[in-house]
């Protein structure tokens, strides 16, 4: 066992993705904490360009794991290749960003290695010489302290925004790149992935909106969405929604805000009856001002709210529309 922190770098078409830098920042901090060193692992085929993009960070090295079977992401290919690297290097921690790709293969990797994977962490702290990881449970209503019980290697992933991209330390010299060939045979990869695509009918671009009134499940029924629409009109803004509202067809999909929808940063974001799950927050927490109306004082949305009203949106919104109309008229 050594004190290596292996950070998984994600690339998309030869470009390093943004969450990768957050994972590197996390890995560097943990390395400092336990007196270890960081190695960044990158998987794919023909990796020289993305590998050199990574080499600017302060790290022991960049490990480029190549194989024609890794040309496109598949959970089989990635889990096999990374399992091989982890078996031979025996890092203390393997650190990931909790992206959709990592969700897709990291649990498989952990199971193949027979080791633990603490997923979707917010932070960690050192306690009696051990690292204790903090993650959300019950959709953010509570936090939990979680510890590994088994032996290392330990796998851990961090939620988007837990570490800052700009906290990544750059090296004085380029980190050395080591290229290895993964023993992944084409027939070990069972899935055949197709091209990435977007649904064509993206009619509204909420990213440019200055004011957004977003509704969540607290709106109760499709006919009540009109109330939010009236508020949006009074404010001169656009209407948006949490995922369940779009899933239910109460508003079209292109109104969805969050990790699987749009990421917005208006001057004012009004959240009506939205609990503020992390997948929603990542899409709106860049807003300059957030007004949240929720009947639950403990709802996570208040963590990112500038202005908060604990109460029934059906009692708050009608007088609010009236007052706004008055203010605008006067």
């Amino acid at each position: 066992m050594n004190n290596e922190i292996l950070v998984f770098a994600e690339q998309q078409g030869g470009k390093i993705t943004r969450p990768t830098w957050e994972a590197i920042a996390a890995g560097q901090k943990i390395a400092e904490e336990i007196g270890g060193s960081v190695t960044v692992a990158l998987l794919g085929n023909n990796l020289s360009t993305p590998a050199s993009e990574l080499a600017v960070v302060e790290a022991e090295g960049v490990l480029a794991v190549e194989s024609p079977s890794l040309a496109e992401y598949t959970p089989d290919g990635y889990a096999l290749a990374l399992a091989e690297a982890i078996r031979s290097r025996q890092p203390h921690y393997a650190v990931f960003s909790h992206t959709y790709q990592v969700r897709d293969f990291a649990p498989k990797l952990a199971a193949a290695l027979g080791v633990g994977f603490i997923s979707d962490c917010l932070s960690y702290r050192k306690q009696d010489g051990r690292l204790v990881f903090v993650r959300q449970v019950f959709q953010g209503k509570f936090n939990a302290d979680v510890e590994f019980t088994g032996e290392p290697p330990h796998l851990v992933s961090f939620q988007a925004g837990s570490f800052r991209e700009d906290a990544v330390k750059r090296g004085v010299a380029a980190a050395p790149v080591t290229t290895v060939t993964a023993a992944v045979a084409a027939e070990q990869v069972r899935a055949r992935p197709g091209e990435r695509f977007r649904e064509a009918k993206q009619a509204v671009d909420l990213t440019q909106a200055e004011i957004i009134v977003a509704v969540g499940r607290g709106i109760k029924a499709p006919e009540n969405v009109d109330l939010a629409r009236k508020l949006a009109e009074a404010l001169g803004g656009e209407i948006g929604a949490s995922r369940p509202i779009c899933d239910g067809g109460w508003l079209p999909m292109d109104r969805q805000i969050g990790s699987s929808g749009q990421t917005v940063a208006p001057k004012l974001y009004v959240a009506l009856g939205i609990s503020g799950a992390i997948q929603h927050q990542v899409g709106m927490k860049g807003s300059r001002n957030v007004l949240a109306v929720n009947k639950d004082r403990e709802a996570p949305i208040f963590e990112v709210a500038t202005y908060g009203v604990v109460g029934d949106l059906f009692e708050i919104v009608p007088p609010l529309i009236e007052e706004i109309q008055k203010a605008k008229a006067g």
Partner: protein
Amino acid sequence: MKIVACLKQVPARDSLLRLNPAGTWIQESDISFEVNEPDIFALEEALRLKEAQGGEVVVCSLGPARAQQAIKEALAKGADRALHLDDPAFAGLDAFGTARVMARALEAEKPDLVVTGLQSEDFGFAQTGVIMAELMGLPHSTIIMQIEVQGGSIKVKRELEAGWFQWIEMPLPALLTIQSGINKPRYATLKGIMSAKTKPIRKVGLADLGLTAGDLAPQQKITRVYVPEKRSKTEFFEGSGKEIAAKLVDKLKNEARVL
């Protein structure tokens, strides 16, 4: 097609959750439970595939006696039979332990397709289905928004970040984790509820599976659960609706400058 749908019971969304005195989990005694939301969509997908392809839907739920409620709901909606994995040794398992038990229980079933939800609303591991796939030797895909069966293989639409998708083909048998919103789940009919009464529910314990408690040793342990420390500087407004509205308008106009 034989399809297994994994359903977990979780605290009902609107229940007021309280921590247990030790601060290690919530107090489960005074709350109601419901089926984990994405699992409802997974079950619906299983039922539709059965209706289109013929075959059987088997429900698999690991949990204490109360999980029977979730199982009965699924049988009432049209599932054919159920495995109820219930043993004191199954209490408080992590994702690995849960997956190990379910994978072992499904070995003899030899399903063509296993569907789970993409994430539980209590633990939120987002791991159990994927670990099961590895333990069962099945190809898998996650966050699925559409399924098309094509003979011995399936084509699935996987959700990626920020509104992107990707079609993926894989051979059957396979395991999929289902995203909420993939379909419009049905409600149980009265007839369904009546016919569910005679559908078989098999209780399965640790010994039935040839496992020991040691096989389920956790890889991770929750040591403390607590209300997150508030770091925000939210300014809260109180009073009547009208008073609140007036104060908010003042803020929006003079501080946020959006009016």
